[in-house]
């Protein structure tokens, strides 16, 4: 199936902002994550921390993808106030 895939945050260092995937061989969100993990295994543990949004909604691994879905790969977010992770603030 055909998908529009968006990459954000640190993924932009490895992928372009947007990619059109003409022939995605899988079926679910988990399949898509596996597909890109195989493309960039060097990102290591980052793959286990991602969220995925399908058409702007957070989606679990077992969600089924449909033709022309927009799928966004989201690293842990860091908007808001500039606090470091391991602080009380």
């Amino acid at each position, binding site marked *: 199936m055909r998908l529009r895939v968006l990459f954000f945050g640190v993924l932009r260092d490895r992928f372009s902002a947007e990619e059109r995937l003409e022939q995605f061989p899988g079926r679910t969100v988990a399949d898509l994550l596996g597909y890109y993990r195989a493309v960039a295994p060097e990102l290591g543990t980052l793959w286990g921390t991602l969220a995925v949004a399908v058409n702007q909604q957070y989606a679990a691994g077992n969600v089924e993808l449909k033709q022309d879905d927009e799928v*966004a790969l989201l690293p*842990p977010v*860091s*908007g808001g106030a*500039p606090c470091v992770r391991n602080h009380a603030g």
Partner: protein
Amino acid sequence: MQVELVYNVIHTQTITGRLKAGEDGAVTVFDGIVRNNTKGRQTLYLDYTAHKSMALQQMQTLADDAVARFGVRDVAMVHRLGRLEVGETSILIAVASAHRGVTFDACRWLIDTLKKQVPIWKQEFFVDGAVWAPGEPFPAELQADSPFSQR
């Protein structure tokens, strides 16, 4: 209810002025600003990017939830994107209501929740390079391969 992503300077007084109504007795404002350092490393500037349509939807949902959960009268939530200098406001959250207790609670809940689930990312530029801020781990139910997320 003002929920926005902007690329220019956030004017606190304009936003809170627009928010206030006659029945309000309290406004609590959270103003998140660009620090001059992260763990002692000197920051030059930051660059914020977002999944914009999704971030706006999420922020709107949070604002609606804050009104429902805490019973506050109104909420304004504005996040800035693009390049920000030290001392500039990256996010402004303002909550107005008749009584102050709920405005504190709602304001704090909004910034805490935004930081965990609204798709915005920050790249920090230092004199000696740039890094993507590590971010807060997603709540288990939002993570794609979490065993808790089999919805």
